[in-house]
């Protein structure tokens, strides 16, 4: 049997709806993301971008629709949480490192405690990831001693150490001082270039244009349009996209 790796999407969303009380955040989202693809989701604040990410790893349960990650159905009530979180990593806007643990512990603790992998092996991997993130000498520091950009790179290493198939990046540069945005974006780019499937919610249009394979534009809980970046940024077809781009570019 020969199936090309791209014939079946790694992640698919079908008719995903989510409401918070009376407010409908997502009103029927369909997406297909293939292995190794880098997808950027852009759109105005409150358009549901972050909620889309959070439904993919089950942090936000959906009201309607199905989400699949490989053979896992996220909306399944019998969902194996650990299995899903093993496959889907996440990096947050506010880094959310554990302040009472060292950098190395932050990166290594979940694979050891949750996935029950051997400590030595995980710590070797964590050290290597910290070196990849250009933080080799910070292993024994505490998060509070690092800059925002450094903390965010630790958070990326922490997500990578779980050896996921996809990583969700939720506005990972939005809380950073301008001079640190670049170092974090180049870290994200490195992750993407190493073949990781990445879904980014971002306000960095330049980065979306350069690094993404596909750009989705969301507004008021729906996907208005999506296209490869070259096409998306040069010939947006929907007036809402054009209006948004005219504001941010």
């Amino acid at each position, binding site marked *: 049997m020969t199936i090309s790796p791209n014939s079946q999407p790694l992640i698919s969303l079908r008719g995903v709806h989510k409401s918070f009380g009376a407010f409908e955040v997502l009103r029927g989202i369909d997406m297909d993301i293939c292995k190794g693809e880098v997808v950027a989701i852009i759109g105005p604040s409150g358009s549901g971008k972050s909620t889309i990410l959070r439904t993919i*790893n089950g*942090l936000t349960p959906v009201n309607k629709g199905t989400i699949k990650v490989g053979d896992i159905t996220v909306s399944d009530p019998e969902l194996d*949480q*650990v299995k*899903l*979180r*093993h496959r*889907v*990593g*996440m990096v*947050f806007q*506010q880094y*959310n*490192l*554990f*302040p*009472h643990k060292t950098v190395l512990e932050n990166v290594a*603790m*979940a694979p050891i*405690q*949750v*996935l029950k992998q051997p400590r030595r092996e995980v710590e070797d991997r964590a050290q290597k990831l910290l070196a990849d993130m250009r933080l080799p000498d910070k292993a024994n520091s505490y998060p*509070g001693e690092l800059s925002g950009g450094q903390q965010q790179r630790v958070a990326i290493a*922490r997500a990578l150490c*779980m050896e996921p198939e996809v990583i969700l990046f939720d506005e990972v540069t939005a809380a950073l001082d301008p001079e640190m945005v670049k170092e974090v974006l180049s870290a994200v780019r490195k992750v993407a270039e190493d073949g990781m499937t990445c879904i980014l919610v971002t306000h960095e249009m330049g980065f979306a244009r350069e690094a993404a394979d596909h750009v989705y534009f969301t507004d008021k809980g729906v996907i208005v349009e999506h296209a490869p970046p070259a096409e998306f940024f040069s010939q947006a077809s929907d007036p809402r996209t054009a209006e948004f781009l005219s504001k941010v570019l």
Partner: protein
Amino acid sequence: MTTSNLYLQILEWMPFVLQGFVMNILMSLLAIVIGTAVGTFLGLGQLSLNFTIGLPSKLLTQLFRNAPWLVLLFYCIFLMPYQVNIAGITIELPSWLRATIGFSFPVAANFSEIVRGAVKSVPRGQWEAAEALGYSRKATLFRIILPQCLTRMIPPWMNLYALLLTATPLSMIVGVEEALGRTQAAVQAQSDSRVLIPMYAALLAMFFLYTWPINRLSLVLERRFRTK
């Protein structure tokens, strides 16, 4: 009688009062141990998503937090048996022990709120990050959240202890031989109205000298933990 004689006379009664004060300390130490242990369970219970654990924990916490300490004390003194039989062994429950148990209830309820408040003070992002890494709610609480908020719980816990100690003279009303009761007895025995003020001043000094450093230390710790 001269003033110096008066002071000597008061000084003679001091060991008697101090022995009573030892009882106050003993009751407060025992009550803080029991109250902290029970309060930990109540506080974690309040955080439970399970209705059958969460609701009773919240109810008990609110009940004992809002009840007057003296009323709880009366309940324990008059409703608890003088002795209990456990597997053929008779354990005496003297009034000081019953009073201590009475003090443990409000301490437990207040500590329950300290635990709940400390856990709630940890940013939501910590829970989300742990969840995204595959930690269960329970594992998140014990491995990630509680280790962070233990230090935040120490200053209010010390305040609670100081409050508890200053409440222990209430047990005099139910006949426990502690410092206030002994001071009163000593004043009566001397049948001299001039000793009244210095005797009670000495009693206040005992409580102050014991409690003040605790409150100071808790303030210092609070400041230190806040800047971290």
